[in-house]
């Protein structure tokens, strides 16, 4: 995996990029919560929310459909929701016979399914925007300031730092195993148990290498005076521009929900 595959940050100089990361995190959570609270079938409200997200992408110096396009990646996860279409009571749309079962998707069911998928896609987009406009170190500092225990913050920080290193090691282990494994006529060799054993040995190897690396890093930390405290050079200042962002976002979300409740569904 190329180093940059793990990076979601897009370097721009935009209003969103300059905003306080704490605010961005809080807004991301607020938008996710707001999306979950949108009623089924509130298409206009969902459309407005999507429009707000497009504006946010522009405010982040990104192409308007940046987040929309990338959110499609999450579609496969939505497969599980398709059953909703068939079990929601209501006006039947069709009768599909699958062997002994007869599936009757209903209008309400399809509506429900569409609502679930759209809500999910909206929330995925806001996470994409967050990581595109905020660097990981800033996210970590912000989480610490927002009350996440510093133990957990440093765990995430070190994890992100060494993720590429360890993923590379895992891939090297897998490539090394592949190049030593002759495949049988059906493309695989050995029993399932044997293959699990090989995979497990790789996991064990990776663990030992990781553990030894953690000991070396610990020594390096001691050599520079680590004594258990978590110290950083960082000041957060919430500026007037950030107030504007907060107000715009809150007003926007309230408007979306007013639209959702005020306009009758169908």
């Amino acid at each position: 995996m190329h180093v940059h595959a793990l990076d979601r940050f897009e370097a721009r100089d935009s209003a969103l990029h300059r905003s306080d990361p704490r605010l961005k995190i809080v807004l991301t959570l607020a938008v996710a919560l707001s999306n979950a609270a949108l009623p089924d079938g509130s298409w206009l409200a969902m459309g407005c929310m999507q429009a707000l997200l497009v504006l946010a992408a522009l405010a982040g110096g990104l192409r308007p459909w940046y987040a929309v396009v990338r959110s499609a990646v999450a579609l496969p996860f939505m497969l599980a929701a398709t059953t909703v279409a068939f079990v929601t009571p209501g006006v039947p749309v069709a009768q599909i016979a699958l062997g002994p079962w007869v599936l009757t998707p209903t209008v309400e069911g399809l509506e429900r399914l569409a609502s679930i998928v759209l809500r999910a896609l909206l929330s995925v987009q806001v996470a994409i925007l967050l990581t595109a406009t905020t660097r990981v170190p800033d996210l970590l500092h912000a989480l610490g300031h927002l009350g996440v225990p510093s133990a957990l913050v440093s765990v995430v920080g070190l994890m992100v730092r060494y993720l590429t290193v360890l993923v590379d090691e895992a891939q090297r282990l897998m490539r090394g195993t592949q190049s030593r494994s002759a495949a049988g006529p059906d493309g695989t060799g050995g029993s399932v148990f044997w293959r699990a054993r090989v995979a497990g040995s790789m996991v064990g190897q990776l663990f030992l290498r990781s553990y030894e690396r953690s000991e070396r890093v610990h020594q390096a930390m001691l050599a520079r005076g680590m004594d258990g405290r978590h110290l950083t050079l960082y000041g957060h200042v919430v500026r007037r521009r950030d107030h504007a962002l907060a107000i715009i976002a809150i007003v926007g979300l309230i408007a979306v929900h007013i639209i959702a409740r005020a306009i009758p569904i169908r």
Partner: protein
Amino acid sequence: MLEITHLHYAYPDGHVAIDDASLALRRGEKVALVGPNGAGKSTLMLTLNGVLSPPPGTVRVGGLEVAPPNLPTIRARVGLVFQNPDDQLFSPTVRDDVAFGPLHMNLPAREVEARVTRALAAVGMSAYADRLSHHLSVGEKKRIAIATVLSMDPEILVFDEPTAGLDPRGRRQLIDLLARLPQTMLVSSHDMRFVATAFTRVIVVDRGRIVADGPTAEVMANESFLVAHGLERG
């Protein structure tokens, strides 16, 4: 500046890594430490700043004994640069890493920032302050790793295989950098050409013992001696 007197170090499993070693460095000296793998070079280096605990009275830096109560001061005086820079760059950004040392010395923020700027400038990496460590090349990481130690204003720098893994250009840059830095230095290396040209004094370690300690030209001249201790002239 640095005094090691009859140092003996054995690991918890009983393996004796250093067997009665004694050496002394004067301020400003640049000395190379050579020897085969497993000779005890790394172990020796780790006792210099107390990461491994030497027996009482055996290691002194600037007159101060390497012992638990002195460790914070010792660690500011002895800048240890490890072989693998990835092990030393553990903070989210370069700036965070270079600031780590001075921050833990309880210096005020403004002083820490000033030191970060100076250290990065000393290694020629001022433009890299806000970069993420895992984006850098090996050569860049090695120089940042040196900066992380320089920001503590050490009196003596200790390097473990500084040129390992570098391409010829990176190696040249690093050798030039080491020549420019004014601190007292103890450098362990397998790169015998580097040793021969950059250091006036060489210490040879084999199986935990110091088997030679003298001017580079003399030590390097005796080829059979070098080979006997797992080295070559280079």
